[in-house]
């Protein structure tokens, strides 16, 4: 199968949907000839024209809110928020409007929109351009939250998100944009709410999201050399969360490390860890659940500090070993 980048996979999912469904369009800042801050929409305005690839003023609240209104009235907007940190300007529209409209209206109306946005650190853009705030959105009833880690998942989940009748927040990790993977050319959809076992193993489960999936897989290779068999589970979607797959894995391995880039304190890892602890897997646990997450600091600029602020492969290796060799 052909290999394309994660970025191309995202673009392809959008383009394929836009070719078949005239209700789908995209709006955002600089998504026209500029192609978006990361180049995801490059070429789209040339194919679909400025009516369907709508370059907006720098007005995140209005963009998100216009998407809500358009979605309520029959369109299926995709919104690109240039950096996920800027969701902070559109929060009311996402959290108080998009997420709640249907419920507040007693089941009337629907808001089929996708908000795509790059998140994560590693580009040296510092504190206001590097956050991982997916835990916020996952806390809000009415939203679905997706964090694909591979090109394959990105394409399939984005199609599913566009086809979904609810507001979906779709986090793209900046450092994954250039990663490549095998991706079918034809459109396909992956279920929202189905975790993926990215690597099978028997000694310990690592539940990892987004870029941490890759660090976990690298760690697993190293750990294998030391005779530790690691299973890597990628939830792919935080809401809905496929806790069954996670629990089944933990029951099998008896040990688990949860890892995400987001600040550990209050991160979604706490939710995952707690769900495991509350589940039938509790009685299978041979060691306490370990969580890894970002340090409680804004992301610093200096690249060495920046790296140190979030879990790295070695941190995962260390945590797995501590878990495995406990008692």
């Amino acid at each position: 199968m052909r290999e394309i980048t994660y970025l191309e996979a995202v673009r392809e999912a959008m383009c394929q949907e836009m070719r078949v469904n005239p209700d789908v369009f995209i709006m955002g800042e600089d998504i026209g000839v500029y192609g978006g801050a990361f180049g995801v929409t490059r070429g789209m305005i040339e194919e679909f024209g400025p009516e369907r690839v709508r370059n907006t003023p720098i007005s995140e609240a209005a963009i998100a809110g216009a998407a809500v209104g358009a979605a309520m009235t029959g369109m299926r907007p995709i919104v690109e928020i240039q950096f996920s940190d800027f969701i902070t300007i559109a929060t009311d529209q996402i959290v108080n409007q998009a997420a709640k409209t249907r419920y507040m209206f007693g089941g009337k109306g629907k808001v089929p929109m996708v908000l795509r946005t790059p998140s994560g650190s590693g580009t040296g853009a510092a504190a206001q351009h590097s956050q991982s705030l997916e835990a916020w959105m996952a806390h809000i009833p009415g939203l679905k939250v997706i964090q694909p880690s591979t090109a394959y998942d990105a394409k399939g989940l984005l199609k599913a998100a566009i086809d979904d009748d609810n507001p979906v927040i779709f986090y793209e990790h900046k450092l994954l944009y250039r990663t490549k993977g095998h991706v079918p050319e034809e459109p396909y959809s992956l279920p929202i709410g189905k975790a993926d076992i990215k690597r099978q193993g028997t000694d310990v489960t690592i539940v990892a999201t987004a870029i941490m999936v890759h660090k976990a897989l690298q760690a697993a290779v190293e750990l294998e050399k030391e005779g530790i068999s690691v299973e890597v589970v990628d939830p792919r979607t935080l809401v809905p969360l496929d806790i069954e797959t996670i629990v089944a894995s933990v029951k099998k391995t008896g040990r688990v490390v949860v890892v995400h880039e987001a600040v550990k304190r209050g991160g979604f890892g706490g939710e995952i860890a707690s769900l495991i602890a509350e589940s039938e897997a509790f009685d299978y646990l041979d060691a306490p659940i370990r969580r890894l997450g970002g340090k409680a600091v804004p992301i610093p600029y200096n690249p060495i500090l920046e790296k140190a602020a979030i879990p790295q492969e070695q941190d995962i290796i260390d945590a797995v070993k501590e878990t495995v060799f406990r008692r």
Partner: protein
Amino acid sequence: MITNLSVPPMITEAKLVELFHQMWLIRFFDEKVDEFFAKGMIHGTTHLCVGQEASAAGACAVLEERDKITSTHRGHGHCIAKGADVNRMMAELFGRETGYCRGKGGSMHIADVEKGNLGANGIVGGGIPIAVGSALTSKMKNLGYVTLCFFGDGASNEGSFHEAINLAAVWNLPVVFICENNQYGMSGPVKEMVKIANIADRAAAYGIPGHVVDGNDIFAMMNVTYEAVQRARNGEGPTLIEAKTYRWKGHSKSDAKKYRTREEEMEWRNNRDPIARMKQVLLAAGILSEEEAARIEAKARQEIEEAVLFAESSPMPSLAILEEDVYA
């Protein structure tokens, strides 16, 4: 066709009579709600539009059924004016299953999607970008409908006002922004909250027309809205209308109204009552007689009593629906 009054072309004599009735319906609805809140019979909070009936009724009068509106926390009038059933509205306030939102929304979230009312909104300014999105659909799908966006003077200081109107302006969308300037945002006098005489003057910041209108004159409301709706429908883009009006009641269920005087209130009640003013015009134009006017008033009052009966006799939602309706 009405010849002795200046009204938009679709406004027939029958329609004027209907609007007169509608204003009473709005007034009685909110007075009844006021009464229930005062008695502690309704949960939550509410914001009444007594005194502001003409801006809701007048603006919506020139709309077609396919047109849409977005409304506010002070939204009962808009809702009725866009054709909602007062029974289901009252049932919603009573938290009943038959309410517009199955009892899940309450006063601040009544929506009537089928009739094109995209909902009240508990967030000041929250509906403005949504209206712009609705207008975008109309444009992209070439549906020809116009979206009326209601909000208050206070809302005009929210960032959403600015961002959304600018977006509508540069995209030339079929939306009409109606700022109901009732002189206060909760307790904040508009004179202290903006440093300009008219909110409508803000239209110039977006390159769109702005109009100030007497929001208590339903005829003026209809005419200025009609013109703006026509512009929007013809692809000429948005308009900002500022309707000067006044809310007779407090901001919400408890309000000592220390921020304004009783004299000011009386002036608006006694001399600028939108219903009394319309009645006078209809009488003078020979469209209504005193008796007919009284009959319409009584009928509206009766309908509200019936709405209460409907609400009271409606079932409470079952606990089973708590987790329904979160996702489509």
